[in-house]
């Protein structure tokens, strides 16, 4: 199921479709020479390009090619945009109208807003242009803040055409061009708001069929299509609809849906299902040791507040609660603490276990065929996730402090297309729920086919400077907090025990610092980069060196004094970046060079030459 999202996005496009004539003409006119300025990178282009071309920076794409021309959005977008803006502003405008209805300035505000909306609509239309050449797609927009986006047509994976009501009324749509880029900020998205339907359709055909033409050895989409088509002819359109809506998440959700179809279509592979992990009831004991219980508690509390607010019931005034409160106040202080504490503890444990059961009941991880993993779990809503091994780039073994104290751990997949969220969301990519550490380690190494000691073995420590940094940071933080508390008690004439008690932060932070240093470590073995950090939430990340698509080296002024640096590998999978913190400079560079030799070596300087 590689390229699942690609495949579905392409499903509506018939294979080998011929683009309509107008489009063909346009793309034919594009540059046939892939490198129109081979005279050297900076020799190209007239140096005195005027403001007209400024912001585009597309001398190569535009001026070198007579036929390829910049296109604008549909004129109708000038209407769509102000109207959508006004609809969005409607509540505000209504409020202003009511507020100022006596003075009549409400109308003025309304008029001003309308004028503003109309002007921005005009500007948006006038400044947005796009250009499609043989190799790339360009998009320019912005009047004051000018922006040029460009993407190689090879990299275009999805073309989503959407139209809301207003769009449909005017016969325009919004085209979003999806690349492999995982940028989370929407302002950088590659989208055209307000092209005519015909233009959108031809854009889609050109861009997606172009992928087929230009990259024979290329996207996963191309090979995936013929495989999937016979297996699930009826399902394809439905899935395509899903993926258009779900975007990224389609990669996670959709393979699960396609699982049964694969089962029917490929019986030979489907037979070989090997179970790797199944939930054991005894693992429930780990439930109270994670944060999941707290999250459930928070949700419950929120729900109760909502209900009492909505129904106007004063919970404290109801009979049963009053009885309990009355009984409780009859106790002595010691009894109160004991009773209260045990009630809270038992309640928390029960809730945490209930949460664990709801999320992980019937948890089962199985290898399906040669190249997929299948995770099924859940009590009420059953989730099934299928992870293609070809998309799996590593695993993360996390041991929150309490779980670690009980020799427990959990394991999360690091895969492209599976977003690693926080808290409960993390469970989406769980390979092992909170369970004995040995299980998590065994599964991690089995899934990736690793030698055991990568998941459990010792790591290279980061040395004295890193340890000193752990202590200085922890203690400095503690001292700051203590100082703030002292200042506050002094200013408020508070009791002395407050600041005396706050001194307990010092040994606590020293303990954490010691543990943080103990956790800190890295290792590179057999093409796997292992890094471990953290104390309260200790994580061992194991990622494939092949999955590293860039490096970031970060050094604060303090780190520079201590000869340390933080090395971050960027990747398209999981959390997108995995760091080795506070590694000595020489070790860090050697590690990066060893992990991805070709990438870093050109930028390394011999140590001998560096020392004067």
């Amino acid at each position, binding site marked *: 199921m590689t390229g699942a999202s690609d495949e579905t996005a392409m499903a509506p496009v018939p294979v080998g479709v011929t683009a309509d004539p107008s489009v063909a003409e346009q793309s034919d006119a594009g540059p046939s020479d892939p490198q129109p300025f081979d005279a050297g990178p900076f020799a190209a*282009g007239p140096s005195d390009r005027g403001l007209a071309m400024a912001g585009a920076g597309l001398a*190569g794409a535009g001026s070198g090619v007579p036929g390829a021309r910049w296109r604008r959005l549909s004129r109708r977008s000038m209407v769509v945009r102000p109207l959508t803006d006004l609809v969005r502003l409607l509540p505000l405008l209504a409020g202003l109208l009511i507020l100022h209805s006596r003075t009549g300035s409400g109308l003025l505000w309304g008029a001003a807003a309308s004028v503003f909306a109309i002007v921005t609509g005009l500007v948006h239309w006038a400044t947005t242009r796009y250009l499609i050449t043989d190799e790339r797609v360009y998009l320019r927009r912005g009047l004051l803040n*000018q922006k040029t986006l460009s993407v190689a047509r090879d990299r275009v994976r999805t073309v989503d055409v959407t139209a809301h009501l207003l769009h449909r009324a005017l016969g325009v749509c919004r085209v979003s061009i999806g690349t492999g880029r*995982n940028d989370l900020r929407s302002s950088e998205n590659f989208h055209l708001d307000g092209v005519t339907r015909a233009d959108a359709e031809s854009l889609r055909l050109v861009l997606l069929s172009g992928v087929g033409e230009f990259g024979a050895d290329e996207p996963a989409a191309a090979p995936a299509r013929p495989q999937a088509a016979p297996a699930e002819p009826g399902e394809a359109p439905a899935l395509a609809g899903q993926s258009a809506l779900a975007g990224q998440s389609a990669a996670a959700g959709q393979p699960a849906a396609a699982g049964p179809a694969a089962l029917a279509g490929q019986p030979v592979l489907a037979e070989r299902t090997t179970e790797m992990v199944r939930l054991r009831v005894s693992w429930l004991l780990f439930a109270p040791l994670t944060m999941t219980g707290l999250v459930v508690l928070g949700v419950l509390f929120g729900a109760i507040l909502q209900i009492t607010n909505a129904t106007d019931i004063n919970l404290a005034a109801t009979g049963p609660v009053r009885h309990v409160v009355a009984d409780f106040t009859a106790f002595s202080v010691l009894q109160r603490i004991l009773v209260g504490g045990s009630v809270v503890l038992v309640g928390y444990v029960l809730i945490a276990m209930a949460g664990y059961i709801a999320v992980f009941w019937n948890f089962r991880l199985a290898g399906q065929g040669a190249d997929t993993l299948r995770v099924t779990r859940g009590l009420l809503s059953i989730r099934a996730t299928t992870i293609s091994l070809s998309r799996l780039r590593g695993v993360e073994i996390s041991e929150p402090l309490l779980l670690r104290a009980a020799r427990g751990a959990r394991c999360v997949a690091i895969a492209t297309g599976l977003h690693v969220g926080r808290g409960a969301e993390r469970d989406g990519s769980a390979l092992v729920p909170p369970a004995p550490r040995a299980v998590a380690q065994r599964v991690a190494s089995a899934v990736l086919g690793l030698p055991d000691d990568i998941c459990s073995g010792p790591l290279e420590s980061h040395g004295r400077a890193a340890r000193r940094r752990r202590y200085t940071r922890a203690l400095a933080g503690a001292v700051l907090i203590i100082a703030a508390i002292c200042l506050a008690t002094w200013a408020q004439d508070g009791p002395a025990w407050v600041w005396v008690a706050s001194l307990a932060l010092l040994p606590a932070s020293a303990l954490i610092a010691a543990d943080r240093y103990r956790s800190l470590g890295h290792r590179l073995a057999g093409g796997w980069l292992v890094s471990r950090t953290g104390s309260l939430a200790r994580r061992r990340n194991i990622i494939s060196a092949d999955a590293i698509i860039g*490096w970031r*080296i970060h050094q604060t002024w303090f780190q520079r004094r201590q000869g340390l*640096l933080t090395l971050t590998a960027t990747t398209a999978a999981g959390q997108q970046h995995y760091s080795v913190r506070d590694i000595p400079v020489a070790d860090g560079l050697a590690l990066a060079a060893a992990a991805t030799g070709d990438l870093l070596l050109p930028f390394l300087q011999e*140590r001998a030459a*560096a020392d004067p």
Partner: protein
Amino acid sequence: MTTDNVVADPLLPGLRVPGNRVSRRAISYWTARAAASGAVVVAVELVLAAVSGFPAIWRAAIVVTATFVGLHAIIMPRWRYRVHRWEVTDEALYTRSGWFSVHWRIAPISRIQTIDSHRSVGERLFGLANVTATTASAAGPVRIHGLDRELADRLLDQLAVATGQTPGDAT
């Protein structure tokens, strides 16, 4: 555009310095930007102080803030200019940025997904632009700030061609 004069990075022995500096005008731009944002803070303080009739503590706060803003506007841009460097080789885009904290970034040309240029109002006033190359990793964009406008345009073209050479979806 590989530079021949390989210079060891004094900030991080072991790495070499990226070949190119950013435009000198970036210093003025960063100064103006720092001064403008600092001026806003001081102005807000002035208004608040004026409301309460300029008590001594407010005056002290304003003096401290103004000194800090002034020093920042003078020191930061020059320091930053000495740090900011970039280089494009056939294989990778290599940048160094920051001032108090320094970032080095390396992105292989073959993994670049999109190339964008952006010019804010302030940058346009100083004839500057910045270029962003994004990779398939959300954590991987490489930004070159404070480039001369025409240089940025040419860099955009150069990178567009270079990334076009590598087929595939670059994840």
